[in-house]
């Protein structure tokens, strides 16, 4: 069934978009991430302009993270205070990101920016996750504990001032790194059209030592709010959010996410991290190859203004 998208200005196959939404939703439910880093490239691949894809995916991630956040809230697995502090940084980062996005679009380097940030971010995060997952798996093989917990170790981050007690997570921590992390996630989320959950979760676990029980729920709240904010800003400044496209993605996404979450519970944690690491790494490598190889066509056209 073909449907003409009012903002993207191209007809798409509804079932294809639904299936893409469901597939990405499945992955995001399984790993507890937004899935934007998969969705945006897929949309670009089916012919939707990168700028429209980034803007529309923001609202899709908002939907899937809201459904996730609701179920985590019921299980009391969200730290509201930690989420609030992350958000202070997150909103600033998002505003900065949308502004940068508009600027890069006018300079003609948006595609390059999106591609390079994908490469750097995804290969690094994916590589680290994969490596960590592999080591955990090898340790488990040898009969040792799968995860090494070092509750006593305090890095330089824990020596920073402006400390605050986050009750639900049972941690006592400086506000500065939390705000900075929120800012970074908000920024890359708005520029790259990703929720940033897959970066936020490891940062919270390894850098801030937030307990795993509250990490995913809290990260989903941050994703939700930054993505709602990003949707608003993209709609106001760039007028590029395609609501019809977003709705199809959302319906596919939230459905897929439910099945993904069930599948995820059947897989062991180390395997899950290893798989996610591989997935993130693969997407990063794909972008790297695209940048390094000689493009099929050296020329591109971009419309800059309507002259009536």
């Amino acid at each position, binding site marked *: 069934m073909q449907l*003409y998208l009012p*903002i993207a200005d191209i*007809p798409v196959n509804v079932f294809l978009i639904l299936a893409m939404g469901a597939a990405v939703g499945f992955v995001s439910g399984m790993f507890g991430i937004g899935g934007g880093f998969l969705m945006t490239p897929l949309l670009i691949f089916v012919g939707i302009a990168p700028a429209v894809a980034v803007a529309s995916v923001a609202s899709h991630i908002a*939907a899937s993270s809201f*459904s996730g956040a609701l179920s985590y809230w019921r299980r009391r697995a969200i730290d509201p205070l930690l989420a609030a502090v992350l958000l202070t940084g997150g909103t600033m980062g998002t505003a900065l990101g949308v502004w940068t996005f508009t600027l890069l679009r006018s300079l003609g380097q948006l595609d390059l920016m999106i591609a390079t940030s994908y490469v750097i971010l995804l290969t690094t995060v994916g590589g680290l996750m994969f490596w960590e997952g592999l080591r955990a798996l090898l340790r488990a093989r040898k009969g040792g504990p799968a995860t090494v917990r070092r509750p006593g170790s305090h890095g330089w981050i824990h020596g920073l001032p402006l400390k605050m007690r986050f009750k639900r997570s049972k941690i006592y921590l400086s506000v500065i790194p939390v705000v900075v992390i929120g800012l970074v996630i908000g920024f890359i989320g708005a520029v790259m059209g990703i929720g940033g959950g897959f970066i936020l979760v490891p940062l919270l676990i390894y850098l801030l030592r937030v307990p795993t029980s509250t990490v995913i729920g809290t990260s989903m709240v941050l994703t939700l709010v930054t993505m*709602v904010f990003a949707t608003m800003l993209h709609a106001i400044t760039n*007028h590029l959010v395609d609501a019809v496209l977003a709705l199809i993605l959302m319906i596919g996404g939230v459905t897929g996410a439910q099945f993904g979450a069930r599948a995820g519970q059947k897989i062991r944690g180390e395997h899950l991290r290893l798989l996610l690491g591989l997935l993130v790494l693969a997407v990063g490598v794909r972008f790297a190859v695209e940048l390094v190889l000689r493009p099929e066509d*050296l020329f*591109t056209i971009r419309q800059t203004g309507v002259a*009536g």
Partner: protein
Amino acid sequence: MSARILMLGWLALGAVLAASPAQAEKLIVSVSNHRVTVTPNYSGEELVLFGSVEKDASTPANRTYDLVVTVAGPRADMVTRRKERKFGIWINTDSRQFLKVPTYLALFSNRPIDVIASPEVQRRQQLGLNNVLLTQRVSGDYADVVPDDVFRSAFVRLRKQHGLYREETSAVTFLTPTLFRTSIPLPAEVPIGLYNVEIKLFADGALLAKTDTAFEIVKVGFEQFVATTAQQNGFVYGLITAAMALMTGWMASIVFRRD
């Protein structure tokens, strides 16, 4: 001196008189649909242009005609960028701005343009993709460059790949010596707006008559509503989209709730 001016005057009058029999032909054309509406199930359209050559008593008999049809879509500014290898990766370096060029451009004729008219006439009448004026801004100057300029040819080639620029020299068919038709394919990617159709009639390499018609592609109903809201009320549009996202998420958590 005055004799020379007089002679020029006579020459001019002679030219007018010589040209007037050529005005004997008149073109009458119409497109099958003057208003193409974009609805949710729109997936491109094909229009038909048909017309006839009207003659009068002064028209020489058995004259064979040639037709060139130019369809130009709404105009826009566009940038063509060239990638180059820098620091091991391919990035956009050089670029050229094309000013107010048609977003859609189609040229149809009944036989190759080279046999219809001389290169001089082709250039003056802008026949064919090589002769259509595509204004570029080259560091402050406004000009159309030679047809084999790399940016211009890349621009035309890319537009052709997307079906947005096309040149078909056998698309116009004469049903009778004076009755003709051609189809105008409009792929779904074709932009919304007003399209001008210019029809030029030639015989023996000279322009005999020309006429214009137009059609428009418009979004209607839901498509139009969404597009104009997004453009004019960004804030409200954003709010609605965000609310829609929250509703979908909330419904999913209700539908799939397991406790």
